[in-house]
């Protein structure tokens, strides 16, 4: 009898272990202050310091845990994290956003995996076209922003019409926040190096042949012209390639395509890649192959190179003495690209909210979107990271505080802009934009493959995931 009892006990323990291993975590959540619903990573937690004004009920602070790449050492963290902090202060006791650091390269992949697990966070920024259209929109996994935006005309009236169109689905829903701020991407150059090399013509008024000669002049003067990179998403190199393509006949039309482009074997692409190969071999740093953004930025900030292609969010780094020397900012000039090209796009997805959240989580997420699009925050954003809001009447204080480099870029835009194109990142399928382009660049740069072969390899890779 004892043996049977022991055996039964052992069997029971085994079954309990199996059942415990197989059970989900719903039961455990009920025992603590956090709840997880709708697959969202957001949760609500008790806040013993707050209470309703009229009664004794403890009010709950809604806490949204948001994974985001604008954190840690990311260039976007400098403005974004303090902005989140301002939001948390404004809504103290009501809403709180906690940012979970994630590398930029891994952000969308993490979002895709969370979507698959039905655990999307309450706020997500961006998403590639295929993922958004074939997964999020097709399966109605987003919260329709239209009713909320209709109730907030002060925000909706600031939005760009083209961006509203892009974000509106066939049945009239708005997937993600349409853009308010335009941020044309140009380049930055070291004025001292340009002067020493005898280059006087404004870059935006040069042709690419003249720009090529300017790079040679810089090289002859003992400077390394370009801060290029192949690591991560090869950002600075991708921008240069976009500008090169924009100056090819038919290139601007390709770059402004609404759909992904899967074939890169047209002669205009080959010519673009030929010039890219030449510049990699002659006008960039030794460490460009394998360099990540931080390396490329450091090459420019430490005056190892004369030029970098990047957006206005980099301006803050020019006066950051932990990254560059005192007074470096005075040496920096800015411009749009040769041929009068600027890179900008209203076609893209920005902040969106997944469906199936609790109402209080939706309210918190909407409060954040409203907060970051308030006039004060928009001005703070433009002062920190550049850009302009065509429909916003900015304050005199804002105009007075506008960074001189931003003012210079605005001037370049007003005087020399001939074409505005999207970057290649917007017309390449995600797999090509990152990582395939950066992975094949080292082979192009060291001459292992020809520009034709480079184009063929990228085309093959793109075709692989074409639906």
């Amino acid at each position, binding site marked *: 009898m004892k043996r049977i009892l022991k*055996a039964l006990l*052992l*069997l029971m323990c*085994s*079954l309990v*272990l*199996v059942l415990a*291993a*197989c059970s989900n975590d719903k039961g455990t959540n009920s025992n603590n202050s956090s709840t997880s619903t709708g697959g969202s990573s957001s949760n609500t937690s008790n806040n013993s310091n707050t209470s309703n004004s009229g009664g004794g009920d403890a009010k709950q602070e809604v806490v949204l845990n948001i994974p985001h790449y604008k954190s840690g050492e990311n260039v976007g963290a400098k403005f974004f994290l303090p902005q989140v902090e301002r939001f948390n202060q404004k809504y103290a006791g009501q809403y709180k956003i906690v940012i979970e650091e994630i590398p930029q390269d891994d952000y*969308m*992949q993490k979002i*895709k*995996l969370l*979507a*698959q697990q039905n655990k999307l966070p309450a706020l997500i920024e961006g998403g590639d076209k*295929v*993922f958004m259209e*074939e*997964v999020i929109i*097709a*399966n109605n*996994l987003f919260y329709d922003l239209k009713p909320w935006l209709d109730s907030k005309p002060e925000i909706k009236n600031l939005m760009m019409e083209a961006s509203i169109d892009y974000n509106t689905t066939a049945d009239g829903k708005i997937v993600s926040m349409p853009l308010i701020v335009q941020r044309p991407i140009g380049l930055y150059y070291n004025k001292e190096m340009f002067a020493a090399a005898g280059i006087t013509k404004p870059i935006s008024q040069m042709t690419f042949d003249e720009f090529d000669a300017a790079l040679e002049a810089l090289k002859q003067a003992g400077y390394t012209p370009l801060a290029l990179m*192949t690591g991560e998403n090869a950002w600075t190199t991708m921008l240069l390639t976009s500008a090169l393509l924009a100056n090819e006949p038919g290139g601007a039309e390709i770059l402004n395509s609404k759909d992904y482009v899967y074939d890169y074997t047209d002669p205009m692409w080959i010519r673009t890649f030929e010039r890219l190969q030449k510049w990699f071999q002659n006008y960039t740093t*030794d*460490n460009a*192959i*394998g360099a990540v953004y931080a390396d490329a930025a450091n090459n420019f900030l430490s005056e190892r190179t004369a030029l970098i292609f990047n957006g206005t969010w980099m301006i803050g780094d020019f006066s950051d003495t932990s990254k560059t020397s005192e007074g470096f900012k005075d040496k920096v000039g800015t411009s749009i690209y040769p041929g009068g090209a600027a890179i900008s796009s209203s076609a893209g997805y920005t902040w969106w909210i997944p469906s199936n959240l609790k109402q209080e989580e939706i309210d918190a997420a909407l409060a954040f979107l409203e907060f970051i699009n308030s006039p004060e925050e928009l001005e703070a954003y433009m002062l920190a990271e550049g850009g302009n809001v065509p429909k916003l009447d900015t304050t005199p204080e804002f105009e007075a505080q506008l960074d001189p480099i931003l003012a210079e870029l605005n001037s370049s835009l007003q005087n020399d802009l001939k074409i505005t194109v999207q970057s290649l990142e917007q017309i390449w399928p*995600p*797999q090509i934009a990152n*990582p395939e382009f*950066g*992975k*094949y660049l*080292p*082979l192009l740069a*060291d001459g*292992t*493959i020809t520009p034709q072969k480079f184009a063929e*390899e990228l085309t*093959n*890779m793109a*075709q*692989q*995931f074409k639906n």
Partner: protein
Amino acid sequence: MYNWKTKLWIAAFLAPALAVFVLFYLVPIVTVFVTGFTKWNGFNSPEFIGFDNYIKLFTYNNTFAISLRNLFLWSLIAATLHVGFGTLVAFILFKRPCGWRLVRGTFMIPNVISVAAWAMIYKFIFNDDIGIINNFMRNIGFSDFHVKWFYEMPAAFFAVTFTWLFYAVIVMLIVLNDLMAIPKDIHEAALLDGANEWQVTRYINLPLVKKAIGTGIILSVTSRIAMFEEVALTTRGGPGNETYNIPLMLYNGIVNSEYGYANAAGTIMILLGVAVMALINRLFRMNERLY
């Protein structure tokens, strides 16, 4: 023969293990096999498309061929150099030289550091500007030594290989365990018969740890089939697709919401793993008794 009561008890005790096996092994494996023949983005219902995912895997470009080539070379290196190194260390430690416990402990350290961390460490080791290898080469007189280890061929293949090559602690432990289990009287008999150290090692120890070495090879080669972090965090399969492997193809399928394609790659990995196990079992006669 067992009576029905005994059979009931056996069944009852087997049930938990069977439940775990079915839930965590059988169901996922069958799912991988079945969905490998479907178009599935993880949200829609899987749609049967026959062998399309496999055709895509094999024929779009040379990525699959390169992945197989890399797997073959990495498996060869794992089965020879990697397992050989682990076995050598085990044989040395078996002699219990001065400090053997320290060496055994030190040999364990890489195993308690995550592969991701190792991959990042190796990115620094092989960095052209600040990496110790290139700087060492330049310091000893090769002033133009600027190999971009993870970004040019064939250096990238070897750089990835170095991220795991010498971490053979599992092999070492398995072999050392078998060496220590050899009955002492066998060694004593051999020594009485006049055998020297080399002959004891060659004709007694080595044959008696054959199964351990076989197990080490199975573990090492199957690790190469599933190797992901070492590649994804260093070369991402580059330069070009020169260090591509099948797990990376699977991963690309997932991030592109092509779960059918990803699971076709997963099926190939499973089949390769089974084939490797069958082959090594046969080569090393793992089912035969040694004593």
